[in-house]
């Protein structure tokens, strides 16, 4: 096996050497993506099911593209969460997959821990494509790859993560990954949307966005979910923008070189201004491309692709 763990369930406790290896491999696949013929036969004859219990067009497309570039066979399975609530058993779905002799499962599920649960019923490689408010490890890996591309290192980098940390799988996986790789992390957002005990994960909390901008090498701006408005979690968009919004006036004031990231999809004019999102400091589209490369690397390393070197 090319990585220590058989699955990629989360980045909590994930070995530093393996994160480094995934990122290195991802850079080599990135070169493949820049060629005219963007396909390698690494996973020929292997079958992957994309099991999405929750809509996520971006993540699913990114995975699908990665799978096609590696010549794997792909099946998509979407189950609405309503059918789950009706009592269709998670176990039955899992057992069906098991019966179909699938080599790997990429799963998005609204419940924390669902991928761990799946390992009990399915004997395939399992990749977590987001489990509720818990982890989103492939997103964190592509974020780290994008940082490494820009800064040539992760160790010692100062990263601010801004927004609703409490409900964010992106934030949690980034925290685990970045701390493991030796970066420093400061969380910034409304106090009621930052978990009370998050300090125990080795991060700082600062509710003053201007101080965080001064401190950070890069900001990862989280999407503000509109469904969180109006139930008391965020008083108003106007207030949020004033306290935490990455507006052009705010960045102009700081006169500082800072890298801007966003996992998408963006709410332009809410957590981030269009001028910033489309500006020179943003690496948001690099993240998208690196997402495909990272996922290729993860699939390749976990599925023990035939030893055809990506270069």
């Amino acid at each position, binding site marked *: 096996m090319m990585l220590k763990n058989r699955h990629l369930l989360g980045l909590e406790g994930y070995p530093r050497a393996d994160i480094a290896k995934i990122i290195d491999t991802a850079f080599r696949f990135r070169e493949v993506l820049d060629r005219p013929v963007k396909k390698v036969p690494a996973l020929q004859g292997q079958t992957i099911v994309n099991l999405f219990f929750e809509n996520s067009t971006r993540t699913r497309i990114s995975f699908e593209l990665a799978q096609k570039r590696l010549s794997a066979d792909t099946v998509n399975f979407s189950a609405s969460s309503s059918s789950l609530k009706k009592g269709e*058993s998670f176990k039955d779905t899992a057992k069906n997959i098991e019966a179909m002799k699938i080599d790997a499962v990429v799963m998005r599920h609204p419940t924390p821990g669902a991928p761990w649960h799946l390992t009990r019923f399915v004997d395939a490689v399992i990749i977590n494509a987001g489990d509720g408010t*818990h982890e989103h490890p492939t997103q964190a890996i592509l974020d780290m790859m994008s940082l490494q591309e820009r800064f040539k290192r992760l160790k010692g980098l100062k990263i601010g993560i801004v927004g609703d940390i409490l409900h964010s799988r992106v934030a949690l996986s980034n925290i685990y990954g970045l701390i493991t790789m030796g970066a420093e992390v400061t969380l910034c957002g409304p106090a009621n949307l930052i978990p009370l005990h998050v300090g125990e994960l080795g991060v700082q909390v600062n509710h003053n966005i201007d101080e965080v901008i001064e401190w950070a090498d890069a900001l990862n701006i989280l999407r503000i979910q509109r469904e969180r408005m109006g139930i008391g979690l965020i008083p108003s968009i106007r207030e949020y923008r004033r306290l935490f919004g990455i507006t052009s006036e705010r960045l102009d004031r700081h006169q500082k070189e800072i890298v801007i990231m966003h996992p998408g999809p963006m709410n332009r004019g809410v957590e981030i201004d269009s001028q910033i999102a489309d500006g020179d400091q943003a690496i948001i589209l690099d993240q998208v491309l690196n997402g495909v490369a990272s996922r290729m690397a993860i699939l390749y390393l976990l599925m023990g692709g035939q030893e055809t070197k990506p270069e």
Partner: protein
Amino acid sequence: MKLEKLSASTILRNGTIIDPVAEKQFKADVLIEDGRIAGIGGQINHEDAKSIDCSGLIITHGFCDLHVHFREPGREDKETLATGSRAALAGGFTRVCVMPNTDPPIDTPEAVANIIDKARELPVHIHPIGAVTHQQQGRQLTEMGSMRDSGSVAFSDDGLPITNGSVMRMALEYGGMLNVPVINHAEDIDLRNDGLMNEGAVSTRLGLPGNPAAAEINMVHRDLELARTTSTRLHVPHVSTAGAARLIGDLKKQHDGISAEVTPHHLFFNDEDLLGFDTNLKVAPPIRSEADRQGLITAIRQGVFECIATDHAPHTTEEKEGTFDLAPFGMIGLESCFGAVNRILVNENDLPLMELIKMLTVNPRNIMGFDNDLLTVGEAAELVVVDTGAEYEFSRAHIQSKSVNSPYLGRQLTGKIHYTISKGNLAVVQ
């Protein structure tokens, strides 16, 4: 486990008796005739008696559990009064109080009488706890007086907190008039919100919505104040936080109508045990932090808790195999109870065995007003014979419940039930 009728004469030989009423420990034989204690003393001779060798074993009162869910009527696929009785015997319990959150709930005198009727021939004593409010909806008081007269020993809407303070106050006053304890599942549901486990570093790591300690502390505080100001009887169930334990300890100094229980699982596990997303550890109130667990043990030493209660809550494997959000709250606990609390309290925390036995026998009986001087000639035999030193791995073979949702499976426990004697029956557990 083998369940048989007691022989006309049975002698428990060479055991060590722990009498939790006299607080004495001594070696003696126990003669049981026609289901009643006929003699306690050294070297009893009786020609035709069946002899059970109890050397190296402890003989004491059968255990009493104030808090079990036997799911009858309504969810007989999870547990019935009959299967629950077997689980009780396997855990050394001869007497249990069943919570009324069945389907339909036990909220009328007729429903209470129905439970009493069905339990009559079963091998353990089963006492119904009646619902406080109609349909457990937290609004209209049930006919508590008539239900008490039909055999309801206490009142609770367990599973659901009584959120309306005014209703809780009326329930306490009415219960006080009837001299029965009122038991409120103490969680502030607004603070609990959609919490699935204890709020803390572990819930943050797992991304699971947290249920803060304040949800319990807040509700316990309200209930204690109401009981104090109305001078009524309140029993606080399954206390999970050090904070609530402290409040209970303080209020007990001012008002003697307060009693409280703690479960084995809140003493045995802490929230780090949920790191593998084991749905069998999804309970309400949740398994708390190590600091809370230690706080509960300290509170036991200080006498805050009268009793251990299991909150035995069977659920089907299908339900518990669901994802963490959909799996129901609760675990079974009767069979593993003694091995768990004996290990944690006596072995690891030096609580005298006598104190633990009292928490399983005479103390809960006193709360419910059951007669308690069981080691007396003429009393119906309600006894348990236990090897307090036995260390073993808890397994499916130890479970008699219809459900198997136990997080103790695969865990090391200390203390094994050998025999339980109850209502003229002998359960050979080992």
